[in-house]
């Protein structure tokens, strides 16, 4: 997390990272006293997922961006930031993503019987 790597744009400070770096970054954010803001998932035109973890540190926004195929398991940061639990469960509901490192991931907005991934284009969206 070299400060020179952060780019200022879109209302915050942005950096690209591999999925393998996400937990290290989350741990580093916690040690600095940063507050977990949100986990945003979008689907690119090619069909991949764009993943953005956002933190607030003393009023400044720090956004860490990564990419993954739809079926790629993502690193969970729930054991570092328990507040990320709902964000990860919602990402599962909307984009059908799975997370490594957590015992279970119950739906948040959907019911148990609803199939996850309602925002995925391949699924055709909410029925």
């Amino acid at each position, binding site marked *: 997390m070299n400060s020179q790597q952060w780019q200022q744009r879109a209302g915050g400070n942005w950096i690209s990272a591999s999925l393998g770096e996400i937990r290290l970054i989350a741990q580093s954010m916690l040690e600095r006293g940063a507050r977990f803001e949100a986990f945003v998932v*979008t689907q690119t035109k090619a069909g991949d997922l764009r993943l953005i973890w956002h933190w*607030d540190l003393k*009023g400044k926004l720090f956004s860490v961006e990564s990419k993954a195929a739809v079926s790629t398991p993502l690193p969970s940061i729930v054991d570092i930031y328990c*507040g990320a639990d709902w964000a990860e469960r919602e990402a599962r509901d909307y984009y059908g993503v799975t997370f490594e490192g957590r015992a279970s991931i119950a739906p948040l907005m959907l019911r148990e019987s609803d199939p996850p991934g309602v925002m995925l284009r391949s699924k055709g969206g909410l029925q």
Partner: protein
Amino acid sequence: MSYRIPIGPYHVALDEPYKIEVDCEGETITDAHIKVGFNFRGIEWLAQRKNITRCIALMERVCGICSNVHSMTFCMALEQIGAIEVPKRAQYIRTVVAELERLHSHLLWAGVAAEMIGFQTTFMEVFRFRERVMDLLEAISGNRVNYSMNCIGGVNRDITDPESVAAGARNIRDTVNRVLIPVFTTDHTISARCRGVGVLSHADALRYGAVGPVARASGVDTDLRRDCAYLAYDQIDFAVPVRTEGDVLARVVVRAQEMVESCNIIEQALAQMPSGSLNVGDIYAVPPGDAVMRIEAPRGEVFYYVESDGSDVPSRVKVRTPTFANIPSVMGMLKGNEFADMPLIQAALDPCYSCTDR
């Protein structure tokens, strides 16, 4: 004896549908589990299927209490993507309406809290008092719930009689100082019900990602209006109330003091409001790009991520409401408390389950 008490999702004691399962050892709460999603409307999905003009109306319906802040945050995100400069007068009008909305939200909460504590008369007096704020909002916008004030590049309506709004703010501040704050801070019964109850430590507030008055009552000195000033807040003097106790009483006091500060902000904003246009004209699309917009809503920070592909329909709108960030911390607040305090502790969060579910 250990047992689990399920409450909800539809229950006479709940203002909105959600479910809470409380594990108890005798009368003491050992764990709690909250289930949401009973108001799920798929607003993020809908936003990707409507043009940005319709999306403004859609976002205003995320929450029935802080409706203005959602349409404003959405518009401000698009203004950032499109590098649209909002006229100064419109920024001041947005500031005034945002603070009036904070006032009516905090007063609504104060009434609900009074009822939870058992003060029916205070509840009715606070709601009668709240009508003054609603009257001001209605006088400005013509509406009482969805104000339709925001458009991309400014506001739809002017404040034509700023002196009457300023007089209203002075009157509200006087009543809050003279009646509301003394009741909530010196009454023995309120103190006995709230002091030391539902404590959220500073460390837990950070771990759970709490925002707004809940975080500030746990010693987290954060307020986007000051830390990341937007609209006219950088031109206005105001204090950010912070307490370190982290209990229900601290949340009560923080919100009460915030009401006084909101009145101060409204008065200053109206006095400084320059003349000029209200908006930059009709805008139906913005260039490709993305933006994060964070605004200090009454319940805490609201977070929007908006992505545009250059068409008139956004390619992604992510909405994270303050209550979405705050509810998980309730599970930390409840542990170790008496079961009888559970309704008050969860109410002290000032939760809004409908905007959480979106």
